[in-house]
């Protein structure tokens, strides 16, 4: 897959970082403002997809990146499962129990386990969508050459 013109490349360089930061903001503030793990994760994946589309597949090492995103996806879903299981061990002994202290509602560090769920579900969603996109691109490069 070839890259696009200089205009697209420069605009992508300017915008991709801002999109990435916006995704992180949506994930971290998931328990305060609209959004959360799913929305932020897809925005994070969108930043990477924008870079790949603009710069072409030669710029990034796609196969290595796919290996990494698969690993992060599986690790993140495993951590979400362990966080849910931690409610069985600590706290009231209920699956998905929110056993950490809740803190003051409205602050960034509050709501117990919910920000952690948001972060890891965000990583999982971003890595999943990026993996699907990368698998399609690599398939095209290898097969439809």
């Amino acid at each position, binding site marked *: 897959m070839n890259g696009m013109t200089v205009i697209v490349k420069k605009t992508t360089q300017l915008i991709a970082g801002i999109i990435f930061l916006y995704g992180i903001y949506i994930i971290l503030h*998931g*328990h305060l403002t609209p959004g959360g793990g*799913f929305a932020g994760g897809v925005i994070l994946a969108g930043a990477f997809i924008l870079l790949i589309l603009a710069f072409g597949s030669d710029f990034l090492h796609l196969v290595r990146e796919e290996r990494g995103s698969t690993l992060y996806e599986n690790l993140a879903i495993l951590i979400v499962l362990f966080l849910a299981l931690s409610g069985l061990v600590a706290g009231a002994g209920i699956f998905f129990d929110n056993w950490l202290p*809740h803190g003051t509602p409205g602050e960034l560090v509050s*709501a117990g386990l*919910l920000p952690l769920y948001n972060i890891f579900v965000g990583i999982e969603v971003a890595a999943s969508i990026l993996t*699907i*996109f990368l698998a399609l691109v*690599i398939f095209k490069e290898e097969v439809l050459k």
Partner: protein
Amino acid sequence: MELAISIITGFMILGALYAIHARDLLSAVIAGGIVGYSLVICFLLLRAPDLAIVQIVVETITLIIMVAVVLDSSRVEAYGKFDSRAWVTAGTAVFILLIMFWFLRIASSDLAPLGDHTVRMADAYMNGAVERTGSVNLVTGVVFDFRGYDTLGEATVLVTAVMGVLTILRIKGRKG
């Protein structure tokens, strides 16, 4: 607001109908995008910004992937013959459609006006949810605390989708 939602829903139906009947697959994909983006406006009108954010981003990425697939494969739809097997399929579809409409007619007589039943259902979640979950955003509180199983299922669906895609598209592993 009901009028606006009705107009947008009619627009969505038109887009879906065009997507079915378009000869050019690229215009069919873009007409499918009309459905998704109109749904975003519906969510915003119904005051669900969480869903609107997810829907607009997912719709954009899906549209990009679909346009790339259509541009790389073929823009002309492959029409099959309408043989006896197609008659069986179409008959089954119409039969199931009639059954669904019958159940819809039964169910719609019990429905409350638009928006009423959601308030009744949400009462149990909204009373003291901020104290119980500590989360100011009620949606996150419901999604990750009250309804944690649903979220785990959703995340598992994504993992399963990735596994399926990788299994189908792994050419290197198939060679070795």
